[in-house]
């Protein structure tokens, strides 16, 4: 992220300490993760210790400090989804894509992450792909999602 962009984000929230979470969210929306350099700069410009911003960024699971893929597949493993087979959905994703939960494919196309409840338990088991909710998941739907993620970048994703 270039400096002007980062500065604009920080200006939106008035360089205030109370806006740091929102700043990190905006950074993550642009970069798909929170890079160390940006995090340190936020601390410096807002005038709070880097240790506190790091504590904040690691406290919330929604922030990632590691680079993530172009497509992020969130598999819900909350209580309702667990009961309705969320773990099997996760298994199928990790097998088909060939990475473990929390990992990103070496080509940087897809990241699989577990989440604990996305707030629509009636649709369990639920998967959220790039902020789009897919409910009542089954093995076939998993295959279709994997195809779709690959479809856009077919050349890059490993079998």
């Amino acid at each position, binding site marked *: 992220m270039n400096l002007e962009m980062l500065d604009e984000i920080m200006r939106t929230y008035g360089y205030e300490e109370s806006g740091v979470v929102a700043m990190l969210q905006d950074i993550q929306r642009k970069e798909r993760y929170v890079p*160390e350099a940006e995090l340190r700069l936020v601390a410096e410009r807002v005038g709070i210790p880097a*240790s*506190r911003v*790091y*504590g904040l960024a*690691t406290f919330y699971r929604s922030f990632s400090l590691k680079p993530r893929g172009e497509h992020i597949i969130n598999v819900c493993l909350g209580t309702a989804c667990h009961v309705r087979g969320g773990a099997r959905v996760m298994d199928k994703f990790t097998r088909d894509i060939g990475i473990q939960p929390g990992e990103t494919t070496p080509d940087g196309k897809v990241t699989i992450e577990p989440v604990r409840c996305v707030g629509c338990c009636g649709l369990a088991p639920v998967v959220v792909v790039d902020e789009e909710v897919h409910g009542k998941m089954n093995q076939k739907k998993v295959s279709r999602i994997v195809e779709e993620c690959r479809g856009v970048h077919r050349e890059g994703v490993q079998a």
Partner: protein
Amino acid sequence: MAKLIVDGKEIEARDGRTLLPVLRGIGVRIPTLCFHEAVSPYGACRLCLVEVTAGKRTLLAASCMYPVAEGLVVKTASERVIRARRMVAELLLARCPGVPRVREIAGELGVQASRFPQRDERCVLCGLCVRGCAEIAGVHAIDFASRGVYMDLAPPFHRASETCVGCTTCVTLCPTGCLDPLDFRMPPSRHRFSETRPAAGCTLCASESFRSDHGH
């Protein structure tokens, strides 16, 4: 001044203080791990719990955080208090079975063994090092990172801190002796006569942690 009743006896205490120093001042023994006079209280370890009745409400409160007020009725060794402290000690013992201070406190409360699954941590997450670093050293080199069972204490990005001055305040305050100043410090080196040499290093005052001009 405020009048309060502690274990049936009426005492006077200055407004603005918290219960713990007042109680200790009249000779009540209260175990603590996360409390230190030099930094602000935090209420993390829950060992200093006492039973406080304010008006109609009675509750267990961390005495290190509870402000003195007129008419409080405090019980420091009721059955409820002892039971709560024993539970806290048991949980701490499960987390840190190898820490002498934790064993000692548990022993004093009559807790010999823990029913909970054991871990082998040294740190009780009391946060004394964080407060010492922020309030005494004023450099905020470390803070809590992550959350829940993954929580630990770390400099930013779990790497040697750029702001740490090597004062070892954190090491001095730590009740469990789990801190190694080398975890937090800049790569030790000292700039002198236009060349950078590795510092010999004093293990007590950590005075080798001068910043190098050569980009460390």
